């Protein structure tokens, strides 16, 4: 059972501003029924740029309903300029906090607000690709821009954080490396330098063997198995790693490419930069 605050409970049991506005001049819809939550936001903005009314329709769990209600309560009476400053964190704070795994509900509210205001300004809304950059997570349709904004606004550090806040990476997991790249890039040069320092330490033979085995089991094998292939670790002599390709990989015409671009590349990434991989046929 989730540990919801009393405010969240109050607002999912008795949400305010449910419904639609017939003559709304700003409308936005985010999320989808496939992903498990969706929010449609209607705003009525007057000629002094004040949000006179806000209503919502939400498909989703308790915290999605509560976040939607909170959002509408927060923006009614505010100017567009003031409303633009609202972040997902403000929505979560209004609710007295949300469980980490539910932070994406507050992000959905913020996303709907931004999109509605863009609609009101007359910006052309097509789809995510045009307006918000490349889609990173295809399972949940999460764009790079959204991920970057959420990392920045909430000072996120790990992939798990990003998943909690945006859902990205929460289904098939194939975008996790991309999320890691974004996190690494945004963590700035300081961390990179630190990481470099850590890598400098030479590995002992034992440590290297363990790392090679781990990388093959957790990174390389799952990738090969997706295409019906497999890999067997045969020997490790210093930085020379001998492997056998199995399954579909064994007879594959591009098995040497697999060996260099995948097996060796991953071992160089996760173990040591000068690992050399040989295939034992």
């Amino acid at each position, binding site marked *: 059972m989730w540990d919801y605050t009393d405010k969240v*409970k109050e607002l*999912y*049991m008795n*949400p305010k501003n*449910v*419904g639609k506005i017939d003559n709304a001049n700003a409308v936005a*819809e985010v999320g*989808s*029924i*496939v992903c*498990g*939550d*969706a*929010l*449609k936001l209607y705003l009525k903005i007057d000629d002094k740029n004040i949000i006179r009314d806000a209503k919502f*329709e*939400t*498909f*989703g*769990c*308790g*915290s*999605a*309903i509560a976040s939607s209600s909170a959002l509408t309560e927060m923006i009614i009476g505010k100017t567009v300029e003031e409303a633009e400053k609202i972040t997902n964190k403000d929505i979560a704070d209004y609710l007295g906090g949300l469980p980490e*795994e*539910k932070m994406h509900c507050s992000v959905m509210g913020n996303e709907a607000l931004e999109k509605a205001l863009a609609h009101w300004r007359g910006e052309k809304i097509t789809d995510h690709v045009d307006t918000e950059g490349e889609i990173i997570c295809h399972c*949940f349709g999460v764009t790079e821009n959204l991920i970057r904004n959420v990392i920045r606004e909430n000072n996120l550090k790990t992939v798990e954080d990003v*998943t909690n806040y945006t*859902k990205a990476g*929460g*289904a098939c997991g194939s975008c996790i490396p991309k999320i890691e790249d974004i996190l690494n890039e945004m963590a700035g040069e300081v961390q990179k330098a630190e990481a470099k320092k850590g890598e400098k330490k030479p590995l002992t033979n034992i440590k290297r063997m363990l790392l090679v085995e781990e990388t093959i*089991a*957790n990174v390389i*094998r*799952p990738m090969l*198995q997706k295409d019906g292939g*497999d890999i067997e670790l045969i020997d490790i002599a210093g930085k020379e790693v001998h492997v056998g390709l199995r399954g579909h990989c064994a007879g594959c015409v591009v098995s040497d490419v697999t060996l260099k671009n995948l097996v060796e590349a991953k071992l160089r990434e996760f173990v040591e930069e000068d690992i050399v991989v040989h295939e034992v046929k």
Partner: protein
Amino acid sequence: MDKTVYLDNNATTMIAPEVLDAMLPFMKERYGNPSSMHGFGGSVGKDVARARIQVAEFIGAENDYEIVFTGTGTESDNMAILGSLAYYRNRRHIITSRVEHPAVISLCKKLEKDGYRVTYVPVDRDGNLDMGLLKESVDDDTAVVSIMYANNETGVIFPVGEIGVFLKERGVPFHVDAVQAAGKIPIDVNAIQCDLLTISGHKFHGPKGIGALYVRRGTRFRPILYGGHQEKGRRPGTENVPGIIGIGTAAELAKMHLRDYDTKVRMMRNRLEDGILGAFKNSHLNGDKTRRVPNTTNIGFEYIEGEAVLLYLDERGIAASSGSACSSGSLEPSHVLRAMGVPFTSAHGSIRFSLSRFTTDKDIDHVLAVMPGVVNRLLDISPYWDSEKQQGRPINI
């Protein structure tokens, strides 16, 4: 309503009063170790032996020593699969289904990483196993087949007897995860012809922390834990005596009450199910209506989300469960519903009600009275429902 209307009996059940009474002396004055060479402990061993017979009779086992007491259903499931693999070292193939409990699926995923080949047999829209594929998948490399007797989410019963006969002819070990069948339908290990079978005490009004694994006489099997001689070395460690007494008593009671499930519980379940399906245009049944344990119904609601339904029900004193993503902490709807290909409009809106022999007609009345307020309120909030026309809106995905 002061009392909780508890309709989540596939998650866990109330301890039957007789079970608790039977257990209490073993948590107080009769704390002896059944292995001891003195009467104080040794007499406890006699009670443990009696519980073993009670469990054996419950599942139709011929010999009491075919029952191994374990810590949980999960442990029994793990032990059955790992114990078979440990014996058949040259066989590297496992067959299971796509809708098994995580106790089996997560283990199989781990074994795949270790280099085992795993066949996950799919199910159809009604949750029935693809028996053709299951049979075709069996080969000389197959070390064990692990299939559940009844599914925890939908209650759908699998034809384990047919599988058992087929595998017996081919000499492939067969494990049945009967955790969700025990206490709801009769279990007979000889009719099923399984080699291994798992049950868990707390699913049939026994205590938590006690499970059992049936290991047919002559089954090739190695333990996964090593230690003392307890359970004939198959599951060492000092016995959880109160738990064992509890599961024994619960098994005997469950056997007595099986008829209640087939009659009273089934009627209440059907009344609840028919009432809901009749009242809401946006609802449908998940799982084969004709092949289910009598206590379970899984209803899919289109255009609304399961966790929200549970929260609203909870507020009105009703405990149920959902296969929705949000209620589990994962981001995807249940693997069972996905394997069945439940439509996306209701994949996040499934509600499972699971009854027990302690459920009353009043409980069902209460749920039927509360449901319209809950469902209609959430439909009003949903962007996918047109309240005026009383129908779903077109959805672009």
